[in-house]
């Protein structure tokens, strides 16, 4: 009997683009070609409307008002916890903590798990391709609390060196592995399930920085057997100001609070306070209510399109871009991981990344140029910086062709 595997649902990019009002804008008189979504993605109408509607029709502070508006707003806010849990396939909604962004999520773990659970002499292990947000908090922990910081090398192809990674775990002193799930510079995915299995075998917990990965692929924290997973809303087509920490319930229970204040307490006297239950213990102060509601709309939006369709579209874009860029003499794509996504860093002989970015900008193309908040990785690669084009579900093949034509002209311009 033949098993018929249905092809992934096609993504109607022309229709999707109509969902993003900003894509109709012109820049310097040219249509906007936005290839900087890895820095922050544009927002669909559904997100914009959800936030406006919340503020126009259903807004009050949450978890405290004994009135209709507060109760409705609390429901809207809390329902996003369910959406995030579903997005990550987390076992429980109570394992979802809302933060400001990935950076705050990692700082929370560095503070509460790093100071509260890890013991001096233990180590945190990261990789050479971390964003500063998954490096600096661990440096601060190292310097203040005698926690060793280890750096797992990458190969020249831009993949985690698994042998070296395993060797760094071997002495059993690593208490936490904190690693990107997808590099914001090289586009490389890391083999999360294998990373977690090796970490656990060595007695370490594992945190994944999903800032990039969660945008492009379905993430299943149970399948990869993660202990912590963090991401930010604004790269996932949601608003700025809201991020997520997922962690296993027992870890959140054991960890001391991060910030103190309202909302995170059970009771307070002048002598003593007790903490609210997880996850509220980690949500001090009035949270980003409207932004959380916006994040909920963003999650609903991407899930309505489906990660199969998104991943297939972006894989096609990435293949197309890599082959078009390979045609340009003097252009070097940085990193060549087998498993990679739509984030492509490159250099062009004779042209500085900032000049590339300025010239592309003149034709409406937005790219990032510089060290991409990964200075040590740039040094590892022997580069001062790169230009970076990154793709989203609204990116078209024609935009990539336009980018390639412009880069060809820039090459001639500086030749």
């Amino acid at each position, binding site marked *: 009997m033949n098993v018929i595997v249905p092809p992934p649902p096609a993504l109607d990019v022309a229709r999707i683009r109509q969902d993003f009002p900003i894509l109709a804008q012109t820049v310097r008189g040219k249509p906007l070609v936005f290839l900087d979504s890895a820095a922050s993605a544009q927002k669909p109408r559904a997100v914009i409307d959800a936030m406006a509607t919340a503020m126009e029709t259903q807004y009050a502070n949450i978890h405290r008002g004994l009135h209709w508006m507060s109760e409705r707003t609390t429901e809207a806010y809390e329902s996003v916890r369910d959406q995030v849990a579903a997005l990550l396939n987390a076992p429980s909604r109570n394992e979802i903590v809302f933060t400001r962004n990935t950076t705050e999520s990692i700082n929370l773990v560095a503070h509460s798990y790093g100071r509260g659970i890890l013991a001096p002499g233990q180590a945190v292990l990261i990789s050479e391709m971390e964003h500063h947000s998954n490096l600096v908090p661990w440096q601060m922990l190292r310097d203040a609390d005698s926690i060793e910081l280890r750096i797992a090398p990458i190969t020249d192809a831009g993949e985690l060196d698994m042998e070296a990674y395993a060797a760094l775990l071997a002495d059993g002193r690593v208490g936490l592995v904190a690693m990107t799930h997808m590099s914001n510079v090289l586009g490389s995915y890391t083999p999360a399930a294998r990373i977690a299995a090796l970490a656990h075998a060595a007695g370490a917990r594992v945190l994944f920085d999903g800032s990039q990965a969660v945008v492009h692929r379905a993430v299943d924290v149970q399948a990869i057997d993660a202990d912590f997973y963090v991401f930010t809303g604004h790269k996932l087509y949601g608003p700025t100001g809201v991020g997520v920490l997922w962690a296993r319930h027992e870890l959140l229970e054991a960890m001391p609070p991060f910030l103190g204040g309202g909302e995170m307490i059970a009771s307070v006297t002048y002598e003593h306070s007790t903490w609210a239950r997880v996850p509220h213990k980690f949500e001090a102060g009035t949270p980003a209510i409207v932004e959380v509601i916006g994040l909920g709309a963003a999650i609903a939006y991407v899930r309505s399109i489906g990660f199969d369709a998104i991943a297939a579209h972006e894989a096609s874009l990435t293949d197309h871009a890599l082959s078009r860029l390979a045609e340009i003499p003097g252009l070097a794509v940085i990193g060549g991981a087998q498993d990679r996504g739509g984030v492509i860093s490159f250099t062009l002989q004779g*042209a*500085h*990344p*900032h*000049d590339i970015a*300025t*010239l592309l900008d*003149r*034709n409406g193309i937005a790219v990032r*140029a*510089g*060290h991409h908040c990964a*200075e040590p990785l*740039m040094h590892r690669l022997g580069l*001062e*910086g790169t230009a970076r084009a990154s793709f989203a579900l609204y990116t078209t093949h024609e935009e990539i062709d336009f980018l390639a*034509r*412009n880069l060809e*002209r*820039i090459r001639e*311009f*500086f030749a």
Partner: protein
Amino acid sequence: MFDDVRDLYQDIILRHSRQPLHMRRLEEFDAKAIGDNPMCGDRCEVRLRLDPAGSIADIGFEARGCAISLASADLMAETTAGRTPAQVRALADIFFGLVRTGTTTSKDPAIEKLKPLSGVSEYPSRIKCATLPWAATLAALDGAMEASSE
């Protein structure tokens, strides 16, 4: 395709960035400073020698950076040679005004050489590229070792 960007990348800028005449290391010098913009990775070390009267007898730089910063460094060296520190500071002030606003009322003869860089005023994120070599030179004259224009 890039005709309208010629306001910024004029031929004179491209020429100075490709072949900077003053990009050379002075082995003997009276003052030096390093200009560093860590956010973008641009770096410019300026070394200079003063004559007995206190004017700049020789000035050279070593730099890595974008076309704008290299051209600006070269034009800076060209226009500051022979000037006293006070004259360099005055010219730097005029130059900073030029790249921020795009115009100047100065009658300083060096301005004609620096005017091709006025186009950066349209690109706020690039102004610091043009001002970095000047910041380094001012730091050298002030006896500071490091400068930044970020």
